[in-house]
């Protein structure tokens, strides 16, 4: 198939950049995963700490330097409910 300039331009337009904040949060997932594992480990050995985390998951994640995105909050909630 031959591609003229108009077609190439149209295809370039199909992939605009998502918001920077979304990309930044996705790049931080390895650190977020480690922080989340750390919170769950703390909660498993310290009931008071568990209660504090459960009371405000968003603040608990943010305190670890993690963007509290909806999927991370859902996962933390699920792991702490086991």
């Amino acid at each position: 198939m031959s591609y003229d300039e108009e077609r190439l331009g149209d295809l370039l337009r199909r992939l605009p950049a998502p918001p920077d904040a979304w990309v930044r949060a996705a790049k931080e997932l390895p650190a977020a995963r480690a922080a989340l594992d750390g919170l769950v480990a703390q909660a498993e050995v310290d009931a008071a700490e568990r209660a504090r985390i459960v009371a405000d998951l968003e603040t608990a994640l943010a305190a670890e330097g993690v963007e509290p995105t909806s999927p991370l909050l859902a996962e933390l909630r699920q792991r702490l409910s086991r």
Partner: protein
Amino acid sequence: MGDDAELVGRCLRGEQQAWNDLVERYARYVHAIATQGYRLRPPDAEDAFQDVFLRVYDRLGSLRDPEALRPWIAQTTRRVCLDRLAAAGREEPSEVEARGLDETIDELDEAFAVREALASLPEECREVLDRFFCRDESYRTIGEALGLPSGTIASRISRCLGKLRERFEGRNEPARESGRSRT
């Protein structure tokens, strides 16, 4: 950035830069499937976007063929978007809509290949084409940012599109399936 198999290998060895590269490479694609394919609204699209990369990060080790990273990410995105539609109480695409969705994703696969070709061009071409076509900036805005007259921007866009065409047609291959077994 290297090819997908190499990128997957580096991610699995825990290289943060490789993960950054993977996110950079696929962010536009995932975003486009969610917003153009499934027409998710911004809050749902953002959740879907983060969920896709979370699943990719957690399950990368289970990918049997690292060369199939793009179709695997496409299929993961489709599943996540369907979950989002269900969670929001919206209906799944009908059969007719699903055909339109397949066509949209075929277009996005093609767009992804063009984007990859763009990444192989010199910086001056990448920047001017990205500003003009992806950020929708005018000749004047681009010219002011780059310190060049508008006429030079127009001719540079044309020249760079020519280079892109050569590069793209030189590497053009049939797109692999993007997880069409599920709408």
